């Protein structure tokens, strides 16, 4: 009886882990991942969703079974009070999950925020309701963000009125643009394509329309665009 229970629990735990791994390998939280940051966030979210799936199925299963167990079996199967060692398990299992996720998150954060060599600097000024993009090296000012693929970029933000938040979902990260100080976001675009930058902090009636086009190009094309003074 006891051995049968241990076998049963082992099978259940293994199938939960299997379900978690299946979810982690199947989901694509950031299908368009187009920067080094986005690839890291995609991995982190996949692992987190896998873990969450295992926990969710496990606890829901336990909840339903625990609720009906007393009605399915005779009351003789009901024990008095479980040992206090059980309380330690209740602490240890969630603590282990939280520690794993914290350590992994810190690792991803360190990789994301690592200094990048020779970044292309771009100054972005937010204002109700548009993004103004300036390339300090060439003095070009435009409303489209063009970046060369493969070269690190350092985006510097400022706002001329209220708080905005710059977000290119395909790049994986966002950063607030504040009126009283400069914030920055470092990333390396990995593949060419056209993306959108949106405002992710409510900034007034025109908030939903505060969108800028983002073009990641081959370095040659980018240089040509810059030389041509931002024309198409």
């Amino acid at each position, binding site marked *: 009886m006891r051995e049968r229970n241990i076998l049963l629990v082992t099978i259940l735990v293994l199938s939960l882990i299997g379900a978690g791994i299946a979810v982690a390998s199947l989901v694509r939280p950031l299908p368009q991942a187009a920067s080094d940051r986005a690839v890291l966030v995609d991995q982190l979210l996949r692992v987190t969703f896998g873990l969450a799936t295992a926990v*969710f199925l496990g606890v829901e299963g336990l909840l339903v079974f625990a609720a009906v167990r007393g009605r399915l079996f005779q009351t003789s199967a009901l024990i008095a009070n479980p040992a206090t060692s059980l309380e330690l398990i209740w602490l240890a299992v969630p603590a282990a999950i939280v520690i794993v*996720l914290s350590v992994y998150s810190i690792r991803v954060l360190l990789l994301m925020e690592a200094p990048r060599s020779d970044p292309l600097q771009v100054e972005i000024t937010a204002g109700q309701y548009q993004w103004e993009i300036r390339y300090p090296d060439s003095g070009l000012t435009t409303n489209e963000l063009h970046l060369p693929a493969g070269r690190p970029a350092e985006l510097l933000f400022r706002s001329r009125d209220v708080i905005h938040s710059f977000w290119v979902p395909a790049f994986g990260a966002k950063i607030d643009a504040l009126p009283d100080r400069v914030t920055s976001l470092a990333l390396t675009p990995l593949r060419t394509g056209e993306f959108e930058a949106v405002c992710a902090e409510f900034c007034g009636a025109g908030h939903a329309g505060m969108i800028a086009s983002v073009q990641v190009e081959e370095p040659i094309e980018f240089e040509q665009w810059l030389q041509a003074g931002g024309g198409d």
Partner: protein
Amino acid sequence: MSQTPRSYFRPTTDPAVLAVQFIAVSFAFFLLGGALALGMTGEASVPGIELLGAEAYSRAFTNHGSIMIFLWLMPAVAGLTHALLPRVLGLTRSALPRLAGLGFWLLPAGGLTMVASFFLGGASSGWTASVPLSTQTAGLGQTLWVGSLILLVLSLGCNATGFLATILSSRGKETRSLPPFAVASLISSALALISSPVLIAALGALLVDRLVAGPSFLAGSLGLTLWQNAFWFFAHPAMSIMLLPAIGVVSEIIQANTGRPLIAGRSVSLAMLTVGGLGLVSWGQHLFASGLIPTVRVSFMLTSMAVGVPLAFIVLAWLTTLWVSKVRFSTPMLFSLGFISMFLLAGLSGLVLASVPANLYLHGTYFVSGHSHLALFGGVMSGLIAGIYYVFPNLTGKAYDENLGKLHFLAHVGGVHLAFLPMLLIGLQGIPRRIIDLGPGLELFQLASSGGAVVLASASLLFLYNLFFAWRSGRPARLTESIQ
């Protein structure tokens, strides 16, 4: 019950009357906040901008948020506490009864001010009232809205002070440990008393900034993040202020419907204390994208994640108590089981948001709305409804219709899942919250979410119908029904 209908419209110090007053008024505002939600979700379901304009839309989500938090959930939890706290402590009166009465009358005062503000231009900077947007938004409406929040936070402070005094003064000669709901209420009230003065000060500064031109507190030399820090110093623990009483009432209902005390009850009390303590030091979780110093971000991440451990401990203690018992599936018990299940979804989505790198992707998106709605509707609201069903026979002497209660349970659980799970998926697709049009490709998710909102609204109307008619013309409750 010796109450005449008129006694519910008069100032009172009777906790049973106060409970009904709080619950009735808060649910009236719930209908208002719900109507705004249906308007917004209707607008989002049709492509383009059809129902509301951008201005009306921002007014709708701002007031939806502030009504649901300050005029519905917080006062409804206070009402439940007025009903249940004297009962679990074995008292007939509460301490500082006049303060409790003041706490109630500030509620219609603040509520009517907020409703008036809506028609006088209206607040439109989100319930988070981010500075400097909220100092620059023109109009009397936004100013009145700030004033109404001050009244409502004062009401919260009065309630918390009264509950704290009741619990502390109840501990006389007897040495037995406090029942779980009293522990939860104690910690929730302490959190409210610690965090609400900070919000009142910040709201006061905002009010002065709006009324007096010239040097300003918030947009001036003190720095913009002052408001964000002060707001979230209140608004982050606010979740625990509402959630802990729900956890407490679910613990009581589990005890009543399994016929045994909670297993590891003392540790559960300690876990609740830990939830409260961590809630006080995690507010920076909402500022990850605001250019916080990197090491500060990591420390806020660790405290935000760590809160999962005591919460998981409480859930496991509940599950073990159910495991070793024969459970009676009364309506309050079903809602308690629903609370555990949906609260789990909120907790897991919260774990994702606590991680800095994941948060930098998901902050300010529909994912955050999905998480907070799962926590507030799947979590706090389920616990609140469980508690209201639980105290109803005692409070009114009448029995509600159990079958309607069970139908309500099914519709509630279905509605919450259908309405708020799609929000998580919409956020993952890269859609910020608070935008009037989602753009193409997400129609199905949005339609499901709107359908869920309609189901949840119908479920809630069924609940109010059930209670109203049971109270007016229901049969008297049997003794056993008052303790399940």
